[in-house]
């Protein structure tokens, strides 16, 4: 036991020495980017898309950001919050990364945000929409290139109210992302005079929807608002149609048709959803991005690839301003806050709490694409409750 304790102490001392050494190293060396993304499990495909997007931007800059060559260190986070703290510490303490990039799962991202806040390492979150990342946990060295769960929900609340629909039932998983999305929807919808008559939920990641669909059929609302993702979204949309509700009670959602259209097939046709990206934006930046992505990876890009791409852009902007010296945290943050990120989704800026201020699109499923119908909410900023910065 004492032996183990001593070994740990020595290891810790060595790690501290290494970190100190790295701080004095020439900024001209390689910059180490720690990619902590899911490579296995339910979100594996999303992890791959984010990594592809990130590497595409770096490759377009000739493999260098801020004058320094980029080197990657990868950890599979398995979307497992229980292992998150260990995994992120591996990157920070063992590999001495300069920048952390990750991840998809909100629970894991929270552990990363905590570690980044404690150690001062730069963190760019390329997906997880948990409010706290740029809310209560916000910090000068934490940035997000994606969205907050509140944003698409709030935008949809407006859209549904403007259609003249009065009473709505919501259904989602009982966990942070679902709750935040529904509360965003409810806030906007009730402000505009609508009423959420019932909030249905089931435990994550349970997919037995039949009982709740029966409740919806019995309540006969004007519309249903939903938030599900991945396999849950596929099953929900198919079950909704199989229960005979499609066509009778319109379904509105956030995220419910992203990366899942092939599996949902005809059952998803006509569903409206809100998000910060769509399949046919047709701005020149997006066209170039989609072409380059398809050429490099022989795959069609999705919203996750865009978020990875923009994470690299944010890093690029910051590093250019400090000439590759990551220890200048304040200058890095100031440059990013001032910058306009030229994203395939349309240009956006970062709020004071470092969450994108962006247009949220209203999309409709046509064929196998989420096609833009219009802008649901222009330059929408997350309220970032609890951020003191």
């Amino acid at each position, binding site marked *: 036991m004492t032996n183990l304790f001593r070994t740990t102490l020595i290891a810790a001392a060595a790690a501290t020495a290494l970190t100190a050494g790295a701080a004095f190293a020439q900024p001209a060396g390689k910059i180490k980017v720690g990619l902590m993304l899911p490579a*296995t499990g339910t979100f594996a495909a999303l992890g791959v898309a984010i990594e592809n997007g990130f590497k595409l931007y770096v490759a377009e800059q000739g493999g260098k950001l801020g004058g320094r060559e980029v080197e990657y260190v990868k950890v599979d986070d398995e979307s497992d919050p229980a292992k998150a703290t260990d995994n992120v510490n591996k990157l920070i303490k063992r590999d001495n990364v300069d920048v952390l990039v990750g991840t998809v799962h909100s629970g894991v991202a929270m552990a990363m945000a905590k570690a980044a806040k404690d150690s001062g390492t730069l963190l760019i979150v390329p997906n997880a929409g948990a409010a706290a990342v740029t809310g209560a946990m916000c910090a000068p060295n934490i940035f997000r290139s994606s969205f907050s769960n509140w944003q698409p929900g709030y935008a949809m609340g407006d859209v549904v109210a403007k259609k003249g629909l009065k009473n709505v039932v919501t259904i989602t998983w009982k966990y942070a992302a679902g709750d935040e999305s529904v509360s965003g929807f409810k806030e906007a919808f009730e402000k505009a005079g609508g009423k959420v008559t019932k909030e249905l939920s089931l*435990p994550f990641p349970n*997919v037995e929807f039949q*009982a709740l669909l*029966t409740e919806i059929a*019995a309540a006969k609302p004007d519309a249903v608002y939903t938030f599900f993702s991945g396999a849950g979204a*596929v099953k929900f949309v198919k079950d909704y149609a199989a229960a005979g509700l499609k066509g009778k009670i319109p379904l509105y959602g956030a995220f419910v048709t992203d990366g899942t259209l092939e*599996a949902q097939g005809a059952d998803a046709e006509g569903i409206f959803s809100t998000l910060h990206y769509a399949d046919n934006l047709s701005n020149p930046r997006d066209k170039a991005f989609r072409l380059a992505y398809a050429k490099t990876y022989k795959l069609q890009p999705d919203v996750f690839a865009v978020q990875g791409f923009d994470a690299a852009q944010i890093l690029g902007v910051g590093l250019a301003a400090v000439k590759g010296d990551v220890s200048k945290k304040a200058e890095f943050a100031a440059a990013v806050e001032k910058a306009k990120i030229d994203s395939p989704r349309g240009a956006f800026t970062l709020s004071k709490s470092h969450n994108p201020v962006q247009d949220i699109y209203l999309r409709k499923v046509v064929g196998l694409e989420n096609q833009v119908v219009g802008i649901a909410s222009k330059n929408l900023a997350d309220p970032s409750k609890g951020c003191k910065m």
Partner: protein
Amino acid sequence: MDFATFLIQCLNSMQYGLLLFLVASGLTLIFGIMGVINLAHGSFYMIGAYMAYALAPVVASTFGGGFFSVLFVGVVLAVLLGYVLEWAFYSFLYQREHLQQVLMTYGLILVFEELRSLLVGDDVHSVPAPPWLAGSIALGDTMSYPEYRLFISGVCLVLALGMYGVFAKTRLGMMIRAGASNREMVQSLGIDVGFLYRVVFAAGMAIAVLAGMVAAPVSSVYPGMGNTVLIICFVVVVIGGIGSVRGALLAALLIGVVDTFGKVLLPQAAGVLVYVLMALILLWKPSGLFKIA
């Protein structure tokens, strides 16, 4: 909740309960009779679902297709695979302690998941229901009930009756029950316990694969699907009494009711209700509702 809705919810609970039974019955066989904690049982279910997705085109081009021929081919493959797995891995586990069983079967989960990732990829896929079952029956003016779900319930009932018949009425069933209560005694009576176990294991695996194949059109197929099913299956087995098929059926139906009505009436507690039920039943009957031997 009005009366019509109540009836539909009862139908929902029964349907969910029967599906749970279908998956869990294979687990209770293997766990109860052979004494092996088989964490890979969820993977067998996952293999079944992916077979329904991947085999359908192959079977269609070789035998001309048909829902039942896909099921048949899948079950035959599952029996073969179960037989080989038992011979290669599980037969070494009977005399070992539970920790070693857990380690090996957990390892198998990782192997199966990785193989799945290599062979089929990580995307979510849907499996179409056979066209003659794709319709639905109207219940009330907004709700309708998919025929395929009723078909699943039918399959589960037939299988439950079949298993009961084999256990209660046949010589094989007698040997299996005897083997579960005292394997040394059965061995000394001259029955080849090794072979008996191999048959039971192959049957347990085949049932799990069949469950996966039958459930695929309603559950869709996705990475990690086996793990979510595994936990609830263990709850079924523990509530029902380890090794008891009758207990598994009753426990599965009970969980169906608690889960369905829990979600509707007590949504805040829906996540824990099933486990509360398990705790209460174990307080009342520490070895489950029905215990063999």
